[in-house]
């Protein structure tokens, strides 16, 4: 007991890690549902529909299916690396999320901010350090499977991730120059304020070129369509994870979605003001937005339950309705209201980016390999470099406020 009071940081951190892990795992599961639904609607289909109301229990069914499938290891494969690769991929993907601030540091328990696990002085740099290691999971999986298609997928992914990491890092340096710090919470705090008392001073305004470079390189870094050449099922069966089955395959899947979340969070923090609200402070009605939004969702669910659902689905959707209404009511309690503003806006912005990801997937065809390489090196890199030089010049000649 004495140990706990003497080391609040240890205890609070452990609790935060446990909660975040639970939240992120759930988010990963429902991100697959979200993606399938959105892509289905883009393609005029219904998507998951039969497992639970609106297919809401589909992620659970998928998880169980993965757990109970046979776990195959190809003969002649490098057993140790074959097992290590999916663990490496998932562990690194989850570590990165520990650096993300989900809310303002002013909200504290036991003197520790609760919305960030690790507020490092070098936050951004450390995040890049971790994501730069992410390539090993994919490359080693491809190599150790002892399969030509897997190896090709692994090679493609290493080449692609090295190439696009350069642009990714360079596109973000402009923001670092403007903020004058690598600490996430400081970068966000520097984006407070408004142009003409209306438009938020997010870095996306001065750094629009950097943002476009970032979002392109980020899609490539996470191996998503249109840059999904490491998997390219029409060319390489399934690329680096061809031989993986059962839960090891699920781990690669989870790592990919965790990376998507990280990258979306980073875009939110660096270019869209993180947990800051998009509305000026004098508009006090914005405090009611989270609660009201959830209540509206609950009312829609209630309407849907009564008019559309039958049998067990009606019961399931009733639970969802009650959950939404309850959370909405909770968000309107005066004590809770100011606390959830930060996480609410952060989540809302991240959801927009995740939707953008899925939208891109549903819309664009895949690049050819040589197109991918020439696009990365001959267009994206020079543009992000030019953006950096211009930002530096802008800064040196004193056209911006000094951070």
């Amino acid at each position, binding site marked *: 007991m004495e140990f706990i009071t003497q080391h609040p940081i240890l205890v609070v951190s452990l609790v935060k890690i446990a909660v975040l892990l639970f939240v992120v795992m759930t988010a990963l599961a429902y991100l697959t549902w979200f993606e399938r639904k959105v892509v289905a609607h883009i393609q005029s289909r219904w998507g998951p529909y039969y497992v639970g109301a609106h297919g809401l229990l589909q992620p659970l069914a998928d998880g169980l299916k993965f757990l109970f499938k046979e776990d195959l290891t190809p003969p002649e494969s490098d057993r140790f*690396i074959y097992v290590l690769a999916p663990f490496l991929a998932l562990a690194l993907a989850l570590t990165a999320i520990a650096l993300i601030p989900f809310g303002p540091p002013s909200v504290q328990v036991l003197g520790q901010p609760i919305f960030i696990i690790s507020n490092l002085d*070098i936050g951004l*740099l450390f995040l*890049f*350090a971790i994501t730069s290691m992410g390539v*090993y999971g994919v490359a*080693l999986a491809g*190599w150790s499977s002892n399969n030509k298609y897997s190896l090709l997928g692994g090679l493609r992914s290493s080449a692609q991730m090295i190439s696009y990491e350069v642009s990714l890092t360079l596109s973000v340096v402009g923001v670092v120059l403007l903020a004058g710090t690598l600490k996430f919470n400081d970068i966000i705090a520097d984006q407070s304020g408004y142009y003409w008392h209306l438009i938020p001073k997010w870095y996306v305004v001065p750094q629009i070129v950097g943002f476009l470079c970032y979002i392109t390189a980020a899609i490539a870094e996470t191996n998503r369509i249109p840059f999904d050449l490491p998997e390219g099922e029409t060319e390489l069966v399934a690329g680096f994870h061809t031989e993986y089955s059962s839960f090891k395959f699920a781990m690669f899947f989870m790592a990919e979605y965790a990376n998507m979340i990280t990258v979306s969070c980073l875009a939110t923090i660096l270019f869209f003001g993180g947990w800051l609200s998009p509305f000026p402070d004098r508009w006090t009605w914005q405090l009611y937005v989270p609660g009201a939004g959830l209540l509206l969702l609950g009312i829609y669910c209630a309407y849907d339950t009564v008019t559309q659902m039958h049998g067990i689905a009606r019961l399931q959707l009733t639970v969802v309705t009650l959950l939404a209404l309850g959370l909405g009511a909770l968000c309107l309690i005066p004590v809770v209201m100011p606390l959830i503003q930060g996480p609410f806006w952060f989540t809302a912005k991240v959801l927009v980016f995740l939707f953008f990801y899925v939208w891109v997937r549903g819309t664009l065809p895949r690049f050819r390999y040589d197109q991918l390489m020439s696009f990365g090196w001959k267009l994206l890199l020079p543009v992000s470099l030019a953006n950096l030089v211009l930002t530096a010049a802008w800064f040196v000649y004193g056209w911006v406020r000094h951070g």
Partner: protein
Amino acid sequence: MSVQLLMFFACALLAVGGAVVLILAREPIHSALALILVMVSLAVLYLLLGAPFIAAVQIIVYAGAIMVLFVFVIMLLNAGVEERTDYSKIAKFAGVPLAFFLLLEIAHWLYHAEAGAAIANGAGAPQEAASTYTLSELLFRQYLFPFEATSILILIAILGALVLARREE
């Protein structure tokens, strides 16, 4: 035992173990992986010393860039298993005793020298983690010339590599 000391011993053990595996492993890719382990453990040691920036750079540059290229090349060439030679005879009779002697010497020095005892007790270590701001101040003001000279040197190396690798028309 404090948490930091525990972390130090864990990482030191990992680093040394990784280095041993790096030499003994017969698959080139296992050696590469062991080297990555060494790099990462070193980065954690830097963190413990209160140098987070160096730690992050260590991971980005060595583990994230250079070793990725190593692994990439090993995968691309599909390098086979190393063949064992029956070690050189000089190593057996001169190398091993000399290495043992060197270790003994270092241990002796660390145990007796005042500097060694002071280092072991944490003297000279910064009280707080050096901030990136201080570091950049030093790097871009006091040591600007060496810094720029190094970058030009690296640029020349890149150009040299390009010239060497270019195919004759």
